[in-house]
């Protein structure tokens, strides 16, 4: 009887040790990854002056990251604005406050939906492409090849993509907001018959340039940095196999979504929670 209990206890202790070992390893690995990501970011930021020397690299990336996303962002913005207007009208007409429709649409778009939805779309459209591209470059050893030729791949490949994403996000977010407001205008004023005078004037009364529009731009800049950083780092850090690249692409989109929504809460609390 006694040896049986003994064996049982030993196995219990072993399971417990394994359990804690797993937690410890996970923690250490994620900390290591965070550290790598941080060094990677600093390295990419130092590539800024190399980009100034060769702006064509940045322009090419602005095209693939920014220009190709315009259509997606503007169509989404149009529909988001239209839906906001439709839903807002239903609620506001219960209170006889249809004139506030413009404020409602513009405030939600400028403060929240513009930066956040654009960032989510951006991570799906451009972030995943960046991760896959860089991951494949790593898998086919193009990055190692560059290193062999004494070309710094982070400065030559990563930095232009990083700064292109950083620059594109505020621009795309402005397009999203403007198109969304216009979409809300078409539905609210065109279809639902809200008067266009109060629609615009109440909007202008309530939306402040510094408090709302500028903060929205800051938000989108932060989201652009976060999303692009995650995308290029996941690509650079991926396992150089087909599966590794696919995992990295998935992670890039998922982490971006978490990071955007989480940092949005923090930024909103800092900006609007006076």
């Amino acid at each position, binding site marked *: 009887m006694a040896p049986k209990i003994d064996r049982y206890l030993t196995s219990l202790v072993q399971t417990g040790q394994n359990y804690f070992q797993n937690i410890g390893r996970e923690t250490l690995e994620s900390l290591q990854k965070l550290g790598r990501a941080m060094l990677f970011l600093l390295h990419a930021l130092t590539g800024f002056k190399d980009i100034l020397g060769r702006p064509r690299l940045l322009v090419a990336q602005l095209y693939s990251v920014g220009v190709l996303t315009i259509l997606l962002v503007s169509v989404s913005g149009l529909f988001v604005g239209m839906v906001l207007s439709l839903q807002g009208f239903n609620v506001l007409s219960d209170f006889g406050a249809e004139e506030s429709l413009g404020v409602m649409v513009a405030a939600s778009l400028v403060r929240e939906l513009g930066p956040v939805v654009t960032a989510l779309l951006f991570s799906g459209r451009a972030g995943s492409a960046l991760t896959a591209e860089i991951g494949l470059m790593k898998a086919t050893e193009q990055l190692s090849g560059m290193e062999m030729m004494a070309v710094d791949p982070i400065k030559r490949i990563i930095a232009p993509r990083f700064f292109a994403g950083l620059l*594109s996000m505020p621009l795309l977010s402005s397009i999203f*907001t403007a198109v969304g407001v216009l979409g809300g205008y078409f539905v609210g004023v065109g279809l639902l018959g809200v008067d266009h005078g109060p629609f615009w004037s109440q909007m202008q009364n309530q939306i402040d340039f510094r408090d709302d529009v500028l903060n929205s731009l800051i938000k989108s800049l932060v989201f652009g940095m976060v999303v692009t950083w995650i995308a290029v780092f996941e690509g650079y850090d991926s396992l150089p196999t087909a599966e590794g690249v696919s995992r990295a692409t998935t992670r890039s989109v998922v982490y971006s979504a978490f990071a955007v929504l989480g940092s949005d809460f923090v930024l909103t609390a800092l900006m609007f929670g006076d």
Partner: protein
Amino acid sequence: MQATRAIEIWVGVFVTLALLALFFVAMEVSNLGEFRSAHGSYLVQAHFGNIGGLKVRAPISMAGVTVGRVERISFDDKNYEAVVDMRIDPTFQTLPDDTSASILTAGLLGEQYIGLTAGGSEDYLKDGDKIELTQSAMILEQLVSKFLFNKAEDNKGDKKSSDTVAKDNGQDAVSPSTSEPVESKAQNEQQNLSATRPTVHTAKPVRSSKVQKAVNSSHPAPTSSKTKSHAKH
């Protein structure tokens, strides 16, 4: 080479489009467009006993037309008053210098704004002038308590006519039988008024009559039912 040219053109289109969108958002959606006419505007100051929920950038309206915005709200720690700096748009240069300012509420529970009522003076307000005639914000709790207090007083004074008083409590039925309670009530209201407005000391008859004028001009009502008309607002 041709391909890069096309790419550069597209990037140029992208950036232009985005800047146009930003311009649209700034000018049409937000209030930045208003700052275009900021020069030439002037500041006018007013002291209030209580500003209620007035916020910076709240509209200043005269006859329902927005003539300016609240620039700054500060506190005068000598007289314990709120000091409100109002920026009046340059279009409105001919406001009389005995204009009175009162803090009003848009809608039942809407945001508060400053309503200006023109006086009859020949001189106009200039930059840095102070509006002397002010009326504080209505505090809902004070109104309710005043109303309840008055009602209790009325009931005590005249049990018989309590129905009529409750029904049309906007009018002070000054009949000989209720003259004394009304008198005491009037004193009471005077106290309440000076409590909400510390500048108005009853010792200064000129000031209080001015205030009375301001109250009357902003709320055209018979003098006897002065404070009652507050309760109705």
